[in-house]
């Protein structure tokens, strides 16, 4: 189980290569890459994203999500790498990978981790555009995606 915060741009393909190199006979690997989009949902050009984080709770929240995925699905190995600080459009914000004997568990674990990361990972995301900056909150679809896994939702 490998979970880390990245301050700098990282290569998702290298993460995938390292992750698969560490496997021991699993048949299925699902990975997800979240990439900083060049346009805001309004259509405005995004110059950069800034991910504010908490010095301890942010990594703690990633570890909790990873442990929950491991406990919940039959996955033998997983990885989360999440940027913090400034991220340029086109750069990878988050890399998630899950390996399992069979594909269903790997798909579900990756899907679950992403849904939880969107609402429960301790980050605050700001889009900087030529017209100004805007702090992002999860949308309704993020909360309902999170609730698909029907534990007690974290939303107040």
């Amino acid at each position, binding site marked *: 189980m490998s979970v880390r915060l990245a301050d700098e741009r990282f290569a998702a393909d290298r993460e995938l290569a390292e992750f698969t190199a560490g496997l021991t006979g699993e048949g299925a690997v699902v990975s997800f890459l979240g990439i900083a989009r060049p346009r805001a949902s309004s259509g405005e050009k995004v110059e950069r994203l800034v991910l504010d984080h908490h010095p301890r709770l942010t990594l703690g929240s990633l570890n909790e999500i990873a442990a929950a995925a491991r406990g919940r699905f039959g996955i033998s190995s997983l990885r989360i790498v999440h940027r913090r600080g400034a991220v340029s459009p086109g750069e990878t914000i988050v890399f998630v990978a899950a390996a399992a004997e069979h594909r269903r568990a790997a798909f579900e674990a990756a899907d679950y981790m992403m849904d939880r990361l969107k609402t*429960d990972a301790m980050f*605050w995301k700001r889009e900087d555009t030529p017209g100004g900056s805007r*702090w992002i909150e999860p949308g309704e679809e993020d909360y309902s995606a999170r609730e698909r896994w029907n534990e007690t939702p974290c939303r107040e």
Partner: protein
Amino acid sequence: MKIGFFGRLRDSLGDEREIAAEVGETVAHFRIRLAALYPQAAHDLLSLRVRACVVDRIVGEDFLLGGHERIEFLPPLSGG
């Protein structure tokens, strides 16, 4: 007491401020005082979607601040 801010609160109020807690003061009461001091962030400081955190734990509105050195205010999260 130190007050730490994150996300949009950090943008409007800076990384940290310092204000002494009153004797027997709760989080709810402290929010009201802060909102009066920083009207530009009053909406967030009074919103229960902005959680209060002491010693790395989310605390409720009736939590007593006495004896604590730091409180943090955490706006709604947006990761991934």
